[in-house]
């Protein structure tokens, strides 16, 4: 009985070791600068350097309740250290934070950054945060963002 139990434990341990996920870290997914992307007629945007391609119709509908005139919006996209994508555009009230899913981008957080809508948004990489600035108003302090919202003390 004891031998059987010992054998069972050994097999279980071996199986657990074989199934456990291999984790590599640290990993830095951050992009040094944002990408400003113009959707095509179908609503697809393509980031050339990092080869990311996705459709933004649903995002534009979520924010503007309109996904018909997709080409007139320029989307600002930046990836942080942890691999989350921060997306916004001129006129948006929110910054959308997307996580990497299985063949999709999943909304992690929708952060309200402007009641009136952003005037000239641009992201800067300020690891571990993402800084959101208004390019037309250089004197305005930047908004520091994390994947979960506005960083305390970082709001304008």
């Amino acid at each position: 009985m004891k031998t059987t139990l010992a054998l069972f434990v050994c097999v279980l341990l071996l199986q657990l070791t074989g199934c456990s996920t291999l984790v590599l870290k640290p990993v830095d997914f951050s992009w040094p600068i944002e990408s400003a992307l113009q959707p095509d007629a179908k609503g697809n945007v393509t980031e050339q350097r990092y080869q990311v391609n996705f459709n933004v119709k649903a995002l534009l509908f979520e924010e503007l309740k309109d996904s018909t005139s997709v080409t007139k919006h320029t989307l600002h996209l930046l990836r942080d250290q942890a691999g989350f994508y921060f997306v916004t555009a001129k006129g948006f009230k929110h910054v959308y934070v997307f996580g990497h899913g299985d063949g999709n981008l999943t909304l992690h957080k929708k952060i309200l950054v402007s009641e009136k809508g952003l005037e000239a948004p641009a992201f800067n990489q300020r690891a571990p945060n993402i800084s959101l600035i208004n390019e037309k108003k250089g004197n305005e302090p930047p908004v520091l963002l994390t994947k979960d919202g506005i960083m305390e003390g970082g709001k304008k």
Partner: protein
Amino acid sequence: MRTFKLVALLVLLAIFSTAAQQMSDRAIVEKFSKTVKDLYEAVDVAKSAFDCADISASIEALKKEFSVHKDLLDRALYPDDYSKTIANLEGRLLVRQKDLGVIETQIARIAELESQVRELSGKIEDLTKENEKLFGGIKNLQRAHQLNMEAAAADRATIDSLTNVVARLRSNLKERDALVFALLDTLFMQYDKDVASMSDVEKQGVSVRLERRNVLTNIKKSISDNLVFLQSTSLSANDYVEIARQNQRFASQWKGLGPKISSIYLSGKQKKNEPAVIDSMLSTWSAKVDEATWRGLAALMAKGGVQLSSFANGKEFTSCFSAFVDAEIKNAKNEPDDVLRKRFNTFNDEVWQKDIAPAWLPVLMESGKITADQKAEIEKSHDSWEKAVTPVSPIVYILVIFVIMLFLWSLGRRMRKK
């Protein structure tokens, strides 16, 4: 065409560098990349040593502007980093220079002069800004002074500050004027030849450089600032001397460089009239300096107790002063000696020895406001006045008595012999 591209590039650089303080990293990278791309294009179409020197200077300006963003650019640029991008650009320029057979020393010389031009431009801009502040300061101090005067309060400190600001402004204006002409000189020196022998392309190059450095605007600004300074109510007699001297210097420098600029702009439509505008502004300034000079001189003479009838040129001044001295000498018989002497001494000690003889007369002659003969006449009048009021020395009396006694003694001896 390439020159225009470069100019556009530099203008863009200037605009962006003064733009918003918060700038997106992407904008910085895009601006750098665009500038590099434009410079590559400029290298490819460069046709002369001058073009190469121009590009070389632009590369230096690019390095100066973007070196602070090196870390960002190193991360963002792909496949090359910041240093590699600059090295590639400089390499391309070097190859182009060799293809054109441009000698390295030519480039170095032109680039050195160009960097001088940039430096001078920067200084001029700084001085212009400082002068604006000083003009504002003068207005405020004058207002404060007037308020204090009304309140009958002692405001020595305000007056001192005002004097200091005026002195600082005077020196700044002088320095700025000198820099503007030094800049102009340096721009022409880059070409190592007379304007008359320049080709149309070279003239076009000079005109682009003149515009890029706002030379004509700076000259006009100098004249208008000097005019404003002249209208300041806080100027001392010596300020007028300095202003007259400065006006004279400016006019003679413009006389030397104005025709060159006219020749550069001869074929251009827009700026063709600019030299004439400057000539006219300069005439106005000179006329105002003339008026102010004579007014300042009259005030100074009055301060020394010499009330002259009004004069507006050298001839009138000379005759007024001579007439005044003549009247004084004629009056000598009617007035007590000590009154006459006191009047002369006041004028001589407080005005003539201190200001007129050492400063005013040389400057008036130097600037052509009086002739050498008129200067001599004024000095002669002064000497005559001095002689008329100076009492005869006791030694003279003793000498006269001695001579008379000697004469009487020799006369007596001769008569005894007879």
